Structures are given as structure tokens and as C-alpha cells.
């Protein structure tokens, strides 16, 4: 019963952390793209070109490895708990 509670509450808590980091990481990437365009804009390009550049950059980001690494938020605590379980109960 305790294990069920741990899994349920752990999953809910880690999902909140996962969502926060997901939004944060996306926001940081978008800001980077905006800055890199603004520092060095293409000659004669308008706002639509800027939007397209950022959109393409975000698509590349979403298909890259980086956002998948956020799944470590679930995996690391799981490994930690199993490690602690073994360390505490090992004789």
C-alpha cells in the first residue's frame, strides 16, 4: 500500500517538475533564437522571415535529443530510490 502511494505521489510530483523544466527549456531556446536573429538579421528580411527562422529553430529543437533528456527527471529519482533501498537493507 505504501509502495502504491509512493508511486502515485512520486509520479504526480515529478510530472510537475517535468512540465516546469519542459517549458523553461523551450523558453530558453526560443530566446536564444530570437537573440541570434536580432544580432545578425538577414538583409531586407521582414518580421515574417524572423518568425519562420524561429519556428524552424524550434522544430529542430523539438526533434533533437535535448527535450528527451528531460525524461531523466523520472529516471534519476527512480535509480536513486532503488539505490537507497539496496544500500539501507543490504547486510
Amino acid at each position, binding site marked *: 500500500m505504501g509502495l502504491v502511494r*509512493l508511486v502515485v505521489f512520486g509520479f504526480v510530483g515529478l510530472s510537475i517538475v517535468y512540465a516546469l523544466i519542459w517549458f523553461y527549456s523551450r523558453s530558453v531556446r526560443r530566446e536564444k533564437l530570437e537573440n541570434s536573429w536580432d544580432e545578425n538579421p538577414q538583409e531586407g528580411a521582414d518580421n515574417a522571415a524572423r518568425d519562420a527562422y524561429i519556428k524552424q529553430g524550434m522544430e529542430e529543437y523539438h526533434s533533437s535529443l535535448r527535450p528527451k533528456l528531460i525524461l531523466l527527471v523520472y529516471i534519476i529519482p527512480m535509480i536513486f530510490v532503488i539505490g537507497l533501498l539496496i544500500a539501507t*537493507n543490504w547486510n
Partner: protein
Amino acid sequence: MRKLKTTLFTLIFVFVAGLLHYVLPQHDVARVTGSEIIRMDFSATNRLFFAQSDSGNVELTTRDVRLINAQRKRSFLLGFVRRDAEGVMVYRNEDTGWIWPPYFKFDSSDLQASASANMSAPGAEQWVVITHYGWRNRFLTIFPNAIAIRPVDGPDVRVIPWFSIVFFVFLIVAFFFVRAMWRQFRERSIDPLLEDAGDAYGRVGEHAAEHRGRIGRWLDSWRGPKQR
């Protein structure tokens, strides 16, 4: 207001520091002098400071609690500075189970056997390091919970609290990470909204100033010329 804020922050700090002091593992250099099992009838005050019955058992209002009697080296500063003096200490030995505090301890019986195996008499001391969390309080009848017993060669052993080191490093990293997240959120999501609101507020302000100008001038016309 400032006083209230200081008081509030002090209270939060004391509470968090107390919680960490209660929950984080500490190490005592001690020798086990005996073990016993007593029946405990918990009250509302000390129930909070005990875990639950062994993880395979059912939870009742009253149960037996394993205790480990020990003679330990006294220390200063959270155990970092050891003294020559000795004092008695009694540890309880309970499963923490799956939830709180997250030690995932299920081997209370084995630990009790380990305590018996390392029991020693004066003159032929077997020193051990007892890892534990919790507080001893005579008035509440609460005991620290022993987590592990490790035999050592002598009382001058140096214990490095790896878990606490990693924990506090993690806490500091997490603090800066959360701060970075908050700043990003403020810069990208709240500030633009506030700027919009600021613009609107500015427009309202100008409009009001215009009106104030007209009405104010009319009001002023009723006052004497030197009052303004």
C-alpha cells in the same frame, strides 16, 4: 511590516532547519550495551515522532518497539567535533517503509540482530558507527531511529557524511535552477504583460490629466488666486 517579514522568515528558517536536523542522517560513534523491546502506547504528542509497524504488519494503536541501548561518544556541532566524554543513548529501531522519512528501511529485525552481534562489555569494547535520524527527548519519550550499525576498529574513526554533502549540494543547485526558471518566466511572460498594462495605464493617466486639467482649472477659478 519589516518586522513581520523578518519574524516570518526566521520562523520558516527555524522550521526548515529543524526538519532537516530531524530527518538527515547523523553518525554516532558508540558501543552497543543491550537491546530491548517495550510496548508503546503512543499519545497524540509523540505519535508524530514514531514511524509505523513493520512493513508487512497491520497498524494498531499500540505495539512493541525495538530499542537499542548504547554508550556513545558525546560531540559538539552536529557531531563534527567529538569529545572524550561518553553518555548513554537509546535508539529505536523501526521500519520507515516507503513514505516518510525516505530511508526505505525494511530490515529492522536484521538491524536488531546486528546490534546483538556487536554488543560488548566494558574492557572488551567493540566500537560501532550508528547511523540514525531523529531526536531523543525524555519528556516526549521519543528516540532517534537507528538506520545502520557498522563495526569499526576504534573510537577515533572519521565519518564523512556523504549523503548530507550530496544533499546540500543538490539543494544549492536546485535553488539556483528554480531562481533561473523564475527569472526566465518573469522576463518572458510577466514583464511583457506588465508593459502592455503599463501602456494602457499611461493612456488612462494622460486622459485623466487632461480632464483634471479642465475640471481643475474650473475649480481653481473658484479659489483665490494665491492658494495654488
